[in-house]
């Protein structure tokens, strides 16, 4: 697959050159001096954690955002005017296939492919369906996809849908030109569809087009792309690394960085008393999971996309439906079942769930810090006819101080705070309720280094106060400094359990390697062996 690339490199201009592109939102610089090159006929990967700036970069390339002055975007040696004008980008052969493929299920294949390109007859303004269908059929044939242009898109298989989206993206390409950006396009595809999809992509590349593939599936990035660019915190960490020289673990290390060594492990404060007991949990791919969290213990849940770690955290936190299981806290037992009208039962039992998507699940951006922070307790602590100002002011002031929320203004609307401070408000919202079990999902995602240190310290303090803590995260660095125990999930099963002193590398290793290499847990030898057997058997 690197033949085309090798032949094309060195002679002629890059297909896409991004030079010194930055983007500032208000006071936040989300992209800093981004530079990358994509050669003609190259399959280039772009990876980075959520919030690292990948999607901002794509939005600049497609003209949604205006970059800060000073950068340049060049396609085939021709510099695009900034901000990128969608029609100019299209003329240059730049096309994006989005996560959900951007198809209208209710319409036919040809209508979807030709959307916004219909040619109307001069006088009647009628769409010439015959010519349109012929054009679409030709593009699909070029892709080698066998799809009926009359079919409704909603009735197609996943790989055919992908083919339609790709056909739409590449129909304007000149022979040997064009660049398609796949933004997490494979997320919703099954393994088999993915295989077909990559054949399709390879077909596109053999035609001379280039591809920029953005994905969280590091495995597929390493397997299919030629070279890869890694972003972290709005910067390009490395660009143009040949994927034959690096593996998933290496990429993960680059994505996470070393966080400047701000945090060290501290001694465990776990006590023998149980904080929460989960029995027979069924959620998503997870079957019959038992999990014990002791008071003061911090347990990490990690794994690749769709491994089940997230499903477990969300089911225990009350955010997602479970198909069965029980959660026992302080002698009270909750049945984990389908999604409810309210998480009130969980909160009453002492569960606090710090959600990942902070402005969708965690906080209301238009409400103030005080209002957001006190929401879960406003009914219990306030009177029926009075929310009561004193306790709210007290609680908010305490959390602003403890988490160092800036600016320290309890009446500021949450939407105007920086990401790190929003995350602190979200954490404070739940810590103020003094939970028995604190469930966190990506607690330090897209926050700056300083905020991360404050958040980690606050989680530790909760554990010191006797709270059981579950942290679901793909950030091995966080897990390594925080957790007393890390459960590594793969395909719905715990394939490794790490305890005691562990490093970021140990966790990354266990995430990607077969389970047999993981450290054995001395405290639960039987359980661990059984799990390992399962892991190897798969």
């Amino acid at each position, binding site marked *: 697959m690197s033949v085309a690339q090798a032949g094309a490199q060195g002679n002629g201009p890059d297909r896409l050159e991004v030079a010194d592109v930055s983007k500032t939102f208000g006071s936040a610089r989300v992209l800093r001096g981004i530079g990358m090159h994509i050669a003609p006929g190259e399959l280039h990967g772009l990876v980075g954690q959520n919030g690292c700036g990948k999607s901002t970069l794509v939005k600049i390339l497609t003209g949604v955002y205006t970059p800060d002055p000073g950068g340049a975007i060049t396609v085939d040696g021709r510099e695009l005017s900034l901000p990128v004008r969608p029609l100019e980008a299209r003329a240059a052969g730049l096309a994006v296939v989005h996560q959900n493929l951007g198809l209208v299920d209710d319409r036919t294949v040809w209508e979807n492919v030709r959307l916004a390109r219909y040619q109307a007859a001069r006088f009647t303004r009628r769409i010439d369906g015959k010519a349109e269908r012929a054009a679409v059929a030709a593009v699909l044939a070029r892709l080698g996809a066998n799809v009926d242009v009359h079919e409704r898109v909603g009735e197609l298989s996943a790989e055919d849908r992908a083919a339609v989206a790709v056909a739409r993206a590449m129909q304007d390409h000149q022979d040997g030109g064009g660049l398609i950006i796949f933004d997490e396009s494979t997320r919703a595809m099954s393994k088999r569809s993915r295989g077909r999809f990559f054949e399709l992509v390879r077909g596109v590349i053999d035609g001379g087009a280039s591809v920029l593939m953005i994905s969280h599936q590091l495995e597929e990035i390493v397997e299919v792309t030629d070279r890869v660019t890694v972003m972290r915190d709005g910067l390009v960490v490395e660009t143009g690394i040949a994927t034959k020289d690096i593996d998933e673990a290496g990429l993960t290390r680059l994505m996470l960085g070393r966080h400047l060594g701000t945090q060290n492990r501290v001694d465990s404060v776990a006590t023998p008393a149980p904080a929460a007991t989960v029995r027979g949990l069924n959620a998503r791919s997870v079957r019959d999971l038992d999990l014990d969290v002791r008071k003061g213990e911090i347990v990490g849940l990690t794994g690749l996309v769709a491994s089940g770690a997230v499903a477990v955290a969300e089911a225990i936190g009350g955010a997602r439906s479970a198909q069965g299981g029980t959660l026992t806290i302080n002698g009270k037992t909750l049945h984990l079942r389908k999604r409810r009208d309210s998480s009130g039962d969980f909160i009453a039992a002492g569960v606090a769930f710090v959600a990942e998507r902070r402005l969708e699940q965690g906080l209301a951006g238009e409400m103030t810090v005080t209002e957001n922070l006190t*929401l879960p307790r406003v009914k219990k602590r306030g009177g029926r006819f009075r*929310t009561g100002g004193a306790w709210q002011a007290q609680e908010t002031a305490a959390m602003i101080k403890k988490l160092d929320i800036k600016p320290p203004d309890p009446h500021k609307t949450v939407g105007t705070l920086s990401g790190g401070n929003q995350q602190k408000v979200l954490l404070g919202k739940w810590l103020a309720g003094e939970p028995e079990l604190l469930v966190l999902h990506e607690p330090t995602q897209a926050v700056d280094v300083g905020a991360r240190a404050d958040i980690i310290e606050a989680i530790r303090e909760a554990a010191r106060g006797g709270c059981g803590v579950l942290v679901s995260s793909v950030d091995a660095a966080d897990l390594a400094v925080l957790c007393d125990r890390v459960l590594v999930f793969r395909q719905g099963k715990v394939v490794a359990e790490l305890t005691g002193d562990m490093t970021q590398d140990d966790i990354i290793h266990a995430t990607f390697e077969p389970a047999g290499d993981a450290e054995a847990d001395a405290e639960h030898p039987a359980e661990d062996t059984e799990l390992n057997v399962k892991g190897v058997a798969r």
Partner: protein
Amino acid sequence: MDTARPESGDVAVAAPGTAGTQAPAKRRRPAPLTQIPSRYSIIVVWAALILFYSLTEPSFLHVTTFQAIFNSQEHLVFMTMALLCTITIGEFVDLSVPAVFGFAGTIMPVLVVNHGWNVWLGSLAAILCATAVGAVNAFLIVKMHVNTIVVTLGMSTLLLGISLLISNDNTVSGVPASFQSIATKDVGGLPISFYYGVALVLVFAYILACTPLGRHMRFVGASREVSRLSGVRVDRIRFGSFVFAGLISGVGAIITVAFVGSFNASSASQYLLPVFAAVFLGTAIFEPGRFNPLGTFVGIYFLETGVLGLQLHSAAVWIEPVFYGAVLVVAVTISTVLHRRVT
């Protein structure tokens, strides 16, 4: 008039010494001077309007003018508060409010005058019917997840039809004078019904600003998922809001019938635009960019002042719609722009 008053002490407690130097806090006091024009701009325009009319038309500055403004809008106060119930929880297009109002306003005189019911019993029946309609809306929208526009548009047409049917498309008059006094009794130069409206607005504003229920309603409007995960009974609050919208419309209808003494079923449909206009205009007053009861209340009387003044100048029919439309678009545009700048 600031709804946040009971909690304004928070600033001093939680952020000592910083309040003066912080960037403008959007909603709470102390508001920096730069924000006062946006919050109170309509009030300033209102004052300017009164001054202008007084200078150009001396008869405007007479006590009867003010009585005319303040004793004629209770029906709008009740309907806008009903609409605010559902807007607060994030349902922006309950089109059925005027129709529910008209339905209750038709049932009551029909039962009392045409069928000889006791007037109190008839009123109670009308209010119950309006509340039941709210419950049906709630069931369809919240439980069956039907689109709000479809449900309320259909409901509103249906109710108008039924109202015309039971009233034979006539104005039904003859409500007992003794009953009328519950609305017409003179208190300080204005009918008591004006104070009912004031009381309703104040209670609503208090609930939103100072009670857990109001806080929950605001959060449901801001984000259902955030509310759900914070333990708020989202569906129950949404259901309740529609039921209360029906109840408030029904009570408002009875007070209006008592005030006027008669009701015509087809009159309700003309209230749709003024109700939405006042509620949206309210977002430009007191809490920029946010639906709020006090702002809506001021908006109603501001609009009425403008229309009345213009009618003193000339009695042309076109004045009212032109004024309503222009003020609404201009004021809400300004409020939207200001709100964006603040957040």
